[in-house]
């Protein structure tokens, strides 16, 4: 079994204190994870030994850097059950999702320029791309009400620009995708963009059922694997999704790098998003031909040191074993759920049990605003997230303006969860609520 107590020592930051000497209890891994020494070392070693631009230049350093860059691609592909040429580096998951949405947009613009006899746009977007990815009025894009803004706003924009209609899967009162509303996936659906797990409730999506429905109607499936990739085994080929996005920084890797997964034949046809150096074949003053994927989508000088760090991160997680990671975090989820249930006046948002969920728990403290909850926890050294966590619609659906959220990582211990729960009791006391539900002298806020 994975031992978080010894594992903590791998993460230098977790040894620091905050707010006047309090040991840090970091429960904000859902926002970004802390980094183990091997990841920090990998980035350092790259800068100290091999730094050079990749896929350019003939010198030894350029060769070494390029090799490191491509070996990392193979490692990350392997980690998520993909082939090497199906992984595109992006700056984060947000960029990966925008890359796909803009592929559809550029194909749609080229196709409509052609039908209206417009300019040379059609020469840069292949006929195959236009056929595959063109959206127009009457087409539908389906998302869910649980999406992070990163997997909602780009699709909203795409719909607005192409005339397509955005529809969404609704949620149950527990915050899970409501199967009763899966029927929004219909013959007009061209894209189903869905989160693998909610970053608010931790609820894990039944991807297989949604993929089956999407296949029935010939829609592409885009999976936001941001929360899952770091916390459970993810096999993108087995899930049979068409595109997927994730960020290294949530997977104990560096900031500044993420990845887009796309099935090879789909990436072949997808028009580029960002254009410029490193992604072109022949450039004249009139036109340009583009490289095959993944280079087609990696314009400009790349974040090589971070890519190298990303490899170290997936190797670190693989060495722990993602099954072990998932089992450990399920235990932490259960401890958090049970602990919260014992604090008077605190309500768990989302699923009330630990089945099919990650160790991400959002909660509401009666009569105390989440920002104030976070402030008191912070004064005790406990770091949680407060606000809407970039997911306003799900909060609206759950009937709250904002929430506080605790989320675990590989290094979270039972003692961390205990400190958090003790802090929650303290929050209530501080704002004048006795342990019984009745407000005491200080008076509620």
């Amino acid at each position, binding site marked *: 079994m994975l031992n978080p107590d010894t594992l903590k020592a791998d993460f230098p930051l977790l040894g620091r204190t905050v707010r006047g000497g309090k040991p840090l209890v970091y429960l904000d891994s859902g926002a970004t994870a802390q980094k183990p020494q091997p990841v920090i070392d990998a980035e350092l070693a790259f800068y100290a030994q091999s730094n050079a631009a990749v896929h350019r230049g003939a010198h030894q350093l350029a060769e070494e850097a390029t090799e490191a860059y491509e070996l990392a691609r193979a490692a990350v592909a392997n980690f998520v059950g993909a082939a090497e040429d199906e992984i595109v580096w992006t700056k984060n998951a947000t960029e990966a999702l925008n890359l796909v949405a803009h592929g559809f947009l550029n194909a749609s613009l080229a196709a409509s320029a052609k039908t209206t006899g417009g300019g040379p746009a059609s020469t840069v977007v292949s006929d195959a791309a236009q056929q595959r990815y063109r959206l127009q009025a009457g087409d539908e894009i389906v998302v869910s009400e649980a999406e992070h803004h990163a997997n909602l706003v780009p699709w909203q924009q795409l719909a607005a620009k192409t005339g397509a209609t955005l529809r969404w899967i609704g949620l149950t009162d527990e915050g899970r995708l409501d199967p009763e509303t899966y029927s929004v996936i219909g013959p007009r659906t061209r894209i189903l963009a869905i989160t693998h797990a909610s970053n608010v409730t931790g609820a894990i999506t039944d991807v297989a059922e949604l993929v089956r429905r999407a296949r029935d109607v010939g829609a592409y499936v885009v999976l936001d694997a941001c929360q899952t990739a770091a916390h459970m085994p993810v096999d993108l080929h087995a899930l049979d999704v068409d595109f997927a996005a994730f960020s290294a920084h949530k997977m104990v890797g560096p900031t500044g790098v993420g990845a887009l997964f796309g099935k090879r034949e789909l990436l072949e046809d997808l028009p580029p998003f960002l254009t410029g150096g490193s992604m072109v074949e022949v450039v004249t003053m009139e036109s340009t031909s583009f490289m095959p994927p993944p280079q087609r989508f990696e314009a400009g000088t790349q974040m090589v040191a971070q890519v190298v760090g990303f490899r170290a991160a997936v190797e670190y997680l693989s060495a722990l074993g993602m099954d072990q990671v998932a089992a450990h975090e399920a235990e932490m989820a259960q401890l958090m759920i049970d602990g919260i249930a014992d604090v008077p006046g605190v309500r768990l948002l989302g699923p009330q049990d630990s089945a099919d969920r990650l160790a991400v728990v959002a909660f509401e403290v009666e009569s105390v605003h*989440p*920002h104030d909850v976070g402030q*008191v926890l912070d004064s005790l050294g406990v770091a949680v997230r407060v606000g809407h966590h970039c997911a306003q619609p799900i909060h609206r659906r759950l009937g709250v303006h904002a929430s506080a959220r605790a989320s675990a990582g590989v290094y979270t211990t039972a003692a961390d969860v205990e400190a958090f729960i003790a802090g929650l009791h303290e929050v209530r006391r501080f*704002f004048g609520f006795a342990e019984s539900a009745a407000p005491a002298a200080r008076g509620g806020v």
Partner: protein
Amino acid sequence: MADAMEQLYQQVILDHARARQGEGELAEYGGESFQLNPTCGDQVTLRVQLDEDRETIQALGWTGQGCSISQASLSVMYELVIEQKVTRAAELGEHFRELMAARGQELDPARLEALDDASAFTGVARYPARIKCALLGWMALRDALAQAQVGA
């Protein structure tokens, strides 16, 4: 923790957050402002009505939701500016902004005294993420007053 938290959440702040002054919708108004703090979702809609000469704040009402700091700040601000000259309200707003920029240092006695209950927010300025909460109402006031002064 007790000390740091009690310095931040002064009793004045807790009291105002609970018994909020000026909360409510104003039916007749010359200026209105909606302000949002996107990091935590706090929001406020604030309306003001000036007198005929557009020199004095005759009525002020606000609605919204937010943390205790933003709510208390709105409430304290209401008490400070109601029935005051627009120029005075602007001056107090400047003092409060200075207080928020002071990283927890006190202002000179004259300005502190002018700020009255609002001086209880001195400790808020030590927490960069909370400064926006405390300023939410003052931003709305500045905006609504500007409208009320130029309005038809």
